């Protein structure tokens, strides 16, 4: 049976999140798959246009409804379930959006979910990390059940734009609950690249010592066009906001360059960066576990080294 993959688009109402292009790449790993992206929105036109450009997408479905102005899983899940009938696979990104939504869809479809798909072995066989990435598990979906999965975005490059798939309006017949209401979202406005998709990341840990001291990282990051990340310890201590946390329970990232500054490298942090192309570690503790995974390690006082780095980079 040919595979038909439905991908739930993540977006903010006007822009398609890059995680969706990564889900498409994952789906393209399923031989011969026909790929449909569904955009649930109040006004889907802009996002649907972006989704239609993704190479490998055969069709974009839009589900427009004023209640879709905010991505509430309780209301989106029944709409996806109403559309899921003809599909063999339903995928979403392994972001907070997808982690919240996809299990709700899987339960309504009475099927298991495969979380954090990192590789496709066959239409029914996938690999995923468990135990904070300390083991890799191969799982097989049995009995011809629908495959619901979240795609580990750090494992896939986004499929390039350049295509133009047809866009169709879908109407769904589903009862939508009103028991969940969006109140607000507070996101720090920043001109820096997005942590999840940045090619370079400068990340700080507990050794920074204060929120004020943490700012030296922003300065270095701006010099090299990097996003800023943080270890759990730095976020817990209040040096950096939660959305900067990198690791098992924060963001899993795969930049070209990751500079870990004053981060000792707990296993839970390392799992978030192991797909980085090049890892640099700066730490005064020569025994810090971060040096075990670093391509370049520099032992020393970060408060001396970081300003030096900035100067040297500026002087190029």
């Amino acid at each position: 049976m040919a595979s038909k993959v439905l991908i739930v688009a993540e977006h903010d109402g006007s822009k398609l999140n890059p995680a969706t292009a990564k889900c498409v790449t994952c789906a393209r790993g399923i031989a011969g798959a026909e790929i449909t992206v569904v955009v649930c929105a109040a006004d889907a036109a802009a996002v649907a246009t972006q989704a239609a450009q993704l190479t490998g997408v055969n069709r974009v479905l839009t589900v427009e409804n004023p209640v879709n102005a905010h991505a509430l899983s309780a209301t989106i899940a029944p709409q996806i379930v109403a559309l899921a009938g003809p599909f063999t696979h339903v995928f979403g990104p392994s972001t907070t959006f997808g982690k919240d939504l996809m299990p709700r869809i899987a339960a309504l479809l009475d099927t298991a979910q495969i979380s954090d798909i990192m590789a496709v072995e066959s239409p029914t066989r996938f690999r995923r990390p468990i135990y904070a990435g300390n083991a890799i598990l191969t799982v097989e979906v049995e009995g011809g059940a629908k495959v619901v999965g979240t795609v580990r975005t750090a494992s896939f490059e986004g499929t390039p734009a350049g295509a133009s798939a047809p866009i169709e309006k879908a109407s769904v017949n589903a009862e939508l609950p009103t028991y969940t209401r969006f109140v607000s979202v507070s996101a720090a406005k920043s001109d820096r690249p997005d942590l999840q998709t940045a090619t370079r990341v400068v990340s700080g840990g507990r050794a920074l010592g204060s929120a004020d001291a943490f700012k030296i990282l922003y300065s270095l990051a701006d010099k090299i066009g990097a996003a800023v990340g943080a270890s759990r310890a730095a976020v817990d201590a209040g040096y950096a906001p939660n959305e900067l946390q990198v690791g098992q329970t924060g963001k899993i990232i795969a930049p070209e360059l990751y500079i870990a500054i004053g981060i000792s490298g707990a296993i839970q942090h390392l799992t978030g960066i192991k797909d980085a192309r090049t890892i640099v570690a700066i730490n005064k503790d020569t025994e810090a576990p971060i040096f075990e995974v670093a391509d370049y390690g520099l032992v020393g006082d970060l408060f001396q080294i970081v300003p030096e780095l900035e100067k040297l980079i500026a002087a190029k």
Partner: protein
Amino acid sequence: MKRILVGIKRVVDYNVRIRVKPDGSGVITDGVKMSINPFDEIALEEALRIKEKGGAEEVVVATVGPAECQQQLRTALAMGGDRAVHVQADGVIEPLVAARALLKLVEKEQPMMVIVGKQAIDDDNSQTGPMLAALWNRPQATFASKVELAEGKARVTREVDAGLETLEVDLPAVVTTDLRLNEPRYVKLPDIMKAKKKPLETLTLGALGLEPKQRLKLVKFEPPPQRQKGIRVKDAAELVEALKKKGLV
């Protein structure tokens, strides 16, 4: 009675170094320290705080798993849970089975809220909370960093990729906990003694009318690929030199 149901899972302690069995059939758990999943401890702590502030009258702790799970239930009772329910089940318990078992307990206990960890640190699935909410047809507020109760409602602040999102949900609802919701209390020795006398009910999946259906075949477990160990540079200049050579800065 205003009741909170807390779901906990017995997992390999977060400090244990995980090793895959040589035959690829699983990870080594023999003789390894087991604990309550850290996110579930946060869930229990939150329930206890709500009760202590008068927002609930009873905290019931439940788990689905083998006989040994009763150790973790006793620990949860020592932390302050009022009573425990153990749904005995052996072998692989998939999140959908755990969610179905919790739903049966929800139907019986009629809680105002169910709190569980956002994920278990063993299989990292992050599924059970939303699955329960879906089957129950009730709201979910995942990745909570703040929970405020009002009459018949909860206002929950969530840690999402963009920052912090606030939702209002009608009760009953399912909440899943993130790291910064609270810091769980330490268990004191007298509480461990007291916990031995607290009620712990044992059921089976069968008694709840459920089967331990396994839908995913676990084909093999492998250790992850190791990164090549890199080099030490002596100073910032050498580092910048190396990065420039690779075109990274």
